[in-house]
């Protein structure tokens, strides 16, 4: 049999035990616990609070009089609200200022973003032109190199070169139209020069003979044109790279 502990007896005495019925049954059955519990009850029952001294009906007023002097009145709410209103006005002004700044920012962004967005197709178009121009100059350079090699070696130029020249001639006209709009006089002059050379090569009635090529070289200065084309191709390549480096989402 498990006896009740002192704590269980105290809880039982103050009726705070959860298993009150169990404790009661045990106390009825166990003489030892019953005796200990009776002693505890006797002891706790003997402890009584000393009688509280009587205080007169005016005790509360006496207490109030004794503390009244040391109390400072609270500030009234009206006073508080009076002192608070400039702070509220200041807060409202700050809010208005913030809202204004936000709106101004949005409007500024809108005003500056719109043209940029509109220019996005223009930039894309420029990138295409640069790509085509770079390709055209590359092919033209190769054609001029072949012509110069033929001059150096005194060979004939086959009909495939003439076919290439005809194709380049068509492309060159398109490129010239684009360059005319872009306002680049150096490039326009070079393309003009190139057109004359291509026209000469393309419109030759038969295969270019060993004598024709030096004449074209001399009259058209193809060596100088080749140099010019190389310089321009480098420039166009750089422009093309720069155009590609511009982020797609950039608006400004």
């Amino acid at each position: 049999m498990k006896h009740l502990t002192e704590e269980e007896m105290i809880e039982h005495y103050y009726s705070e035990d959860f298993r009150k019925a169990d404790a009661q049954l045990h106390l009825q059955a166990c003489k030892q616990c019953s005796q200990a519990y009776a002693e505890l009850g006797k002891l706790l029952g003997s402890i009584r609070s000393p009688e509280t001294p009587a205080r007169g009906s005016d005790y509360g007023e006496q207490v109030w009089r004794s503390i009244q002097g040391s109390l400072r009145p609270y500030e009234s709410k009206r006073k508080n609200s009076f002192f608070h209103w400039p702070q509220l006005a200041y807060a409202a002004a700050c809010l208005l200022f913030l809202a204004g700044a936000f709106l101004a920012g949005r409007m500024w962004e809108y005003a500056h973003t719109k043209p940029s967005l509109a220019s996005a197709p223009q930039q894309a178009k420029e990138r295409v032109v640069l790509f085509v121009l770079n390709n055209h100059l590359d092919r033209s350079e190769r054609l001029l190199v072949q012509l110069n090699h033929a001059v150096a070696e005194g060979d004939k130029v086959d009909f495939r070169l003439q076919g290439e020249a005809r194709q380049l001639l068509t492309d060159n006209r398109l490129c010239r139209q684009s360059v005319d709009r872009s306002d680049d006089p150096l490039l326009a002059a070079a393309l003009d020069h190139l057109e004359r050379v291509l026209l000469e090569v393309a419109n030759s009635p038969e295969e270019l003979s060993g004598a024709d090529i030096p004449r074209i070289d001399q009259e058209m200065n193809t060596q100088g044109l080749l140099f010019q084309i190389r310089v321009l191709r480098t420039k166009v390549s750089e422009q093309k790279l720069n155009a590609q480096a511009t982020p797609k989402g950039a608006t400004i």
Partner: protein
Amino acid sequence: MGNDDYALIRSVLAGDKDAYGPLVARHSQSVFRVAFRITEDEADADEVVQEAFLRGYRNLKGFDARSNFRTWIYRIAMNCALDVLNKRKNQTGVPIAEEYDDAQAAIQLADRAAGPDRLLLSQEIQARRHAAMEKLTPTERVAFLLRHMEDRSTEEIATALGIAPNSAKQAVFRAVHKLRQSLAPLWAKS
């Protein structure tokens, strides 16, 4: 009563200091009763009542409108009473023995020899009880008084003392255990 108290509190907070007067008058008696139960000294209890109402006034802004002013001021009073007990404990010059000691009976039992046997025993018990109560820590003492004299539940004691319910229960257990140790010899004698 509760709504009336709250209306007075609102007046006080609005700047009407005198509205606190009726609150003090209304609750002074009950605050004095609990203060005396804890301190067992009239002068200390009076001091506790004044201090409790002063602290209450200063902290009135923190009073929760959903609470009961009586319970709130009651708790402040208990804290003030605990402060008094702590102060008293620090100033005690004569040590009180844990166990009953015949050699120190003159100090422990003020009026041991007077009256018939039964009265003498009763006086001994009260004197011994007072000495035993003085041996308790302030928390044990208040917890025991609230449990034994005021018939408060463990949860109420815990709330009043600002401790966990289990700590409150343990404080009561320790207090009863100490009282048993101190008072058991008297029961053996009787």
